[in-house]
């Protein structure tokens, strides 16, 4: 494909952000056809955390994620065709169709896996970091989580162990204020900040704007450098917001579970709009740039969907495979 990846890191961030958004929107658009027969949790609205983090990690760094992992997978460099093929349940899917949207993996780029049990990859990520330490490699492991996952006891245990053994692990928490439809207030004490809890546990921690991709990238870069040079594990909490329903392709704000002013305020702070505003004056950026990116990305997505549709199903005869290595 004749793509034009900008050399400038800021522009690259903007383009990557757009790409993740367009992929998620394409999934949302195609999903109602019933070909992708697995639950999907889209990241529309939250992409800046993924993209900023992905940009700050080396390819040799590792990541694990959650049910809402498309953006993390792509931002870490995961293969788009194999992502879509996985959603279509195909053998060429990144998990050979066994896992679906909630179980993504791309070992070529250090994306070690996302899983669907809330909190379940938290210790796995810490274990990857322990593995790196034992082997003496320089990888940093990035553990993506949501605000809900932090309610699982295993989060606290994992953070504690990371601090005790000073492991090279970075927790990146997308706090979108909701766990499914449940607001923070019924799940965590009012006014409490998660990053402060984590700091008290013994990690370096901070709260940042998760809708500013440049801030995310810069913050994560600093954190990763500190960890790589032997610093303590880090927890970064990013405030952000989900535009679509928790699971599925539609908007659901007619249900009224989120205050309308919040929704409006957050949509006004759409990470894509913000990012484009920030590079508005960049010499290599113009409306034309956006247009070109859009059509390049659209073509890439079309091709990936075509691939996902055309590539074969797994054979029924292989169904019982992979239970044991």
């Amino acid at each position, binding site marked *: 494909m004749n793509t034009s990846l900008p050399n400038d890191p800021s522009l690259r961030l903007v383009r990557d952000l757009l790409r993740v958004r367009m992929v998620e929107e394409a999934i949302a658009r195609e999903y109602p056809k019933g070909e992708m027969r697995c*639950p999907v949790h889209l990241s529309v609205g939250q992409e800046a955390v993924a993209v900023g983090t992905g940009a700050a990690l080396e390819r040799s760094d590792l990541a694990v994620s959650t049910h809402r992992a498309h953006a993390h997978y792509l931002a870490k460099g995961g293969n788009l065709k194999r992502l879509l093929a996985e959603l279509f349940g195909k053998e060429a899917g990144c998990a050979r*169709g066994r896992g679906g949207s909630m179980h993504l993996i791309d070992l070529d780029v250090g994306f070690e896996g996302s899983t*669907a*049990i809330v909190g379940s990859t938290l210790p796995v990520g810490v274990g990857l970091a322990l593995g790196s330490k034992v082997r003496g490699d320089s990888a940093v492991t990035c553990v993506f989580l949501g605000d809900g996952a932090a309610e699982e006891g295993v989060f606290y245990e994992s953070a504690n162990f990371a601090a005790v053994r000073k492991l090279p692990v970075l927790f990146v928490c997308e706090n979108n204020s909701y766990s499914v439809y449940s607001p923070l207030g*019924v*799940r965590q004490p009012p006014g409490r900040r998660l990053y402060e809890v984590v700091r008290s546990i013994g990690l370096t921690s901070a709260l940042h704007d998760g809708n500013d991709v440049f801030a995310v990238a810069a913050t994560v870069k600093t954190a990763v450098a500190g960890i790589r040079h032997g610093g303590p594990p880090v927890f970064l909490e990013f405030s952000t917001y989900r535009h679509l329903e928790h699971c599925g392709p539609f908007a659901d704000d007619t249900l009224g579970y989120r205050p309308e002013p919040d929704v409006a305020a957050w949509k006004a702070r759409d990470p894509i709009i913000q990012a484009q505003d920030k590079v508005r004056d960049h010499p290599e950026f113009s409306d034309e740039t956006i247009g070109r990116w859009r059509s390049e990305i659209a073509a890439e997505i079309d091709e990936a969907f075509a691939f996902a549709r055309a590539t074969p199903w797994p054979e029924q005869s292989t169904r*019982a495979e992979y239970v044991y290595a």
Partner: protein
Amino acid sequence: MLEKSSVQMKFGEAVRDGLDVALQLDPHLICYGLGIDDPKRIFGTTAGLAEKYGNDRVFDVPTSEAAMTGIAVGAALRGVRSVTVHQRLDFFFLAMDQLINNAAKWHFMFGGQRSVPIVIRLILGRGWGQGPTHSQSVHSWFAHIPGLKVVMPTNAADAKGLLLSAIFDPNPVLFLEHRWLHEAVSNVPSGDHRVPIGRARVVSEGGDVTIVAMSFLVPEAIRASALLARHGVACHIIDLRTIRPLDWDTVSAGIVKTGRLLALDSGLPICSVASEIVAFASERHFHSLRAAPRRLTMPDHPEPTSFALTRNLHPSAESIADTVCEMLDLPHRFAADPKAGPHDVPGPWFKGPF
């Protein structure tokens, strides 16, 4: 016995009705679980309850399955019964310590001084991409554990009746409801309708083979018996309803009657309820058996996500009928001619994703 009025309703509505009745009967009963008062209301099964009984009795909780289970135990010790709900059984693995070491043993290990009347609703997923971690049912694990009771209703009336019995039982009861049964309609008695825990139901009284089933496999067994009836085979179908304590009398009678046993299980095969039933049959009714007893279960691997890989994954009417024909040395086979429509949904009502 007084005739009670009854109403046609769906399984999911019957659960809701049961909760409503219980919340009225016991002013201290509480109901909680992730999303219990959200717009989806646990597939509709808790609709309107938070409004009717208030947020002190029907409430949403943090994503903390372990603690929330121990909290139910503690509340029960204080005389507050509870119905907790998990949208998938798979999430409940996080709470095994509280279930096994506390809930199941409290009454025994303190010499019978305090019991733990709690109900834990676990919803069983299947198909439509639920995949390896949203489709598990470990009812066989629960059946292994003394101190627990385990019910798996198959129709709306039993759902309500068993739920009410479970809530007012003095012991911890796991209430396993199959997502694919939520729309099943039947006549449900109004008011305080109870179905006793520990009693199976004879669904049909045939003389050729005894089929023991639970949960979603009961309707499949019924469909299988219709297929088989066309070939003159009459099935004795037992709906276990309760997995622990198991109604061995009803199972025994069925085994002795036909001498042929097919034990179905909606879960994994090894050390399963089906294993237990076959073991029981051969240990206790060895001389009544006219042919080798058989099991039909999920295969011995996790449920994959892909549409292509879930076809014929679970026992179905067709595979049940085929197994019965094998047992009876009959030539008929049905698997080649499955039910119409996509195999990964219970029916057109299911819109996914969960």
